[in-house]
């Protein structure tokens, strides 16, 4: 990775981004499983505005809970299906996500695990020094019969306040819901088939190759 391309948001934006971080995380914990008047997950509520910061998605994967949990637990596996995540490296108990941003740039998200219940739940939150304030949780539950495992990914992102914050949110978190949905589908493909499906005709035409091309 070329360091010059990394946006030094830590210096300029971290203050704003993380000022509300603690409160936002508490809100996330309280809200992630909160039900309304019905039994539907919170993130499926009709949203008159677009300011609901929680996105989520569930897929059913024809593999045992343990196998899926083990794969996800090793965060270095995640970039194999998370398209905009370049790498995840460990630094002590922190995990540093290098995420692709437009114009060949990257941002760094620093997270730590806040919950790890074997074969059930892994949750993480951003910590100081992160370019973006975010929380995420993946949970695994048995599907009926031999259908495998229901995997739910819920993410919370808090765009920093103000005009600049909105611009940054737009820049780095373009359509996080779409990204989460596609990533989860790719996770399913990888687990069920051993590969991420592509309709590319040549190796140069895969999305991965095209992204690298755009970065150059």
């Amino acid at each position, binding site marked *: 990775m070329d360091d010059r391309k990394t946006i030094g948001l830590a210096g300029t934006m971290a203050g704003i981004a993380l000022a509300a971080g603690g409160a936002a995380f508490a809100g996330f914990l309280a809200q992630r499983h909160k039900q309304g008047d019905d039994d539907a997950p919170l993130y499926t509520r009709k949203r008159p505005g677009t300011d609901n910061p929680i996105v989520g998605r569930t897929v059913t994967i024809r593999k045992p809970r343990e196998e899926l949990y083990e794969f996800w637990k090793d965060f270095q596996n995640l970039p194999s299906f998370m398209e905009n995540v370049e790498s995840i490296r460990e630094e002590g108990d922190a995990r540093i996500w290098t995420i692709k941003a437009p114009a060949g740039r990257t941002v760094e998200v620093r997270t730590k695990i806040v919950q790890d219940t074997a074969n059930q739940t892994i949750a993480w939150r951003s910590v100081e020094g992160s370019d973006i304030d975010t929380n995420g949780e993946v949970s695994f539950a048995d599907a009926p019969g031999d259908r495998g495992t229901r995997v739910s990914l819920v993410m919370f992102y808090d765009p920093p306040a103000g005009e600049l914050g909105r611009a940054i949110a737009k820049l780095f978190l373009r359509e996080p819901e779409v990204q989460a949905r596609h990533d989860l589908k790719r996770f399913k*493909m990888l687990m069920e088939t051993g590969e991420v*499906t592509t309709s590319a*005709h040549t190796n140069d035409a895969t999305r991965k190759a095209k992204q690298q091309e755009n970065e150059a």
Partner: protein
Amino acid sequence: MRALTWHGTHDVRVDTVDDPEIINSRDAILKITSTAICGSDLHLYDGVIPGVRPGDVLGHEFMGEVVETGRDSTLKKGQRVVVPFTISCGGCFHCKIQQYSACENSNPAEKQDMSATLYGHPMAGLFGYSHLTGGYSGGQAEYVRVPYSDVGPIVIPDHLEDEKVLFLSDILPTGWMGAENAEIQPDDTVAVWGCGPVGLFAIQSAIVMGASKVIAIDHYPHRLELAKQLGAEVIDFRKTDVREALMEMSGGIGCDAVIDAVGMEAHGFAIDNMIDIAKQKIGIGADRASALKQAILAVRPGGRVSIPGVYGGMTDKFPLGALMEKGLQVRSGQTHVQRYTKDLLEKIEDGTLDTTFLISHRLPLEEAPRGYKNFREEQDSWTKVVLKPGMEQEQAA
């Protein structure tokens, strides 16, 4: 390599494009020996399917020789295989219950949104059939990349020539499933709309399944003649009142099962069909469904409606009341090809099914654009076009 590519409505060309490569470990590369133009390719040709892009390589009915295999392919170089037009991963819930055309993994993640919006669920991947179904390059080409090659392709014994087995890729299983979905019983009277390839194979299948009477409906004399040769009674809808004739020919009861092998570009002069044609032309995309509407009125109460014909969007003035009041069962869907290939190959080998009668023209790949044009404009005599990439131009029939 050379490949038939889409450039716009009624504009297909043979261009030079990149050779396909092995990308994933379960892939294989085929050298195409025979590939057919399908009636549903004409929907792409006529520009009524969304999500086709200039340069897309068409073709979903093909077979060839394995020339390259990924690490986890079960195929071997030199094998001859027919490839189902539906791409299936073999590992998802739908593949495991043999609903292969509903495979959850064969349409790339980023391509699933369009069909999910249209239909509530994403479609599976199909070869050469728009980006709605994955944007895969098709087989009307010298070579093709086949993903999940350990699941779909069926190996063909050497003694069976291409033309005997090529239609296992789509139209034979599609006709067969069309008849199977009609749940044919021995005493049944079955009516089939459309004597194109799928209709003819549905007629053939219905007869093999033991229907007591099969009635074929079309207006092309040669196609009706082919239906007759298969053992069907025929109705020319231009000359005869179809519903009244079907009532009479079924002893006043109505047909036990009806099969719509026409789909979204139905011919016919009913007023609603003319309106639907106009809407299709100005791009507001109502499917012409006159055959289906007629079939629903002709089937007896409690009867079965099978729809192998292709529809893509919405239709107007659908006889929903007849559907409910008569208590009809409707079954449809893209064919679960992999479910049928083995059995149908056996039926070809033992002579129960022979589909070679359908082929009217054999052309080199370079002449594919002429094949499209004539297949569309001269449907009566051009019943099925087989393209042969290896054929010299002067050998063309």
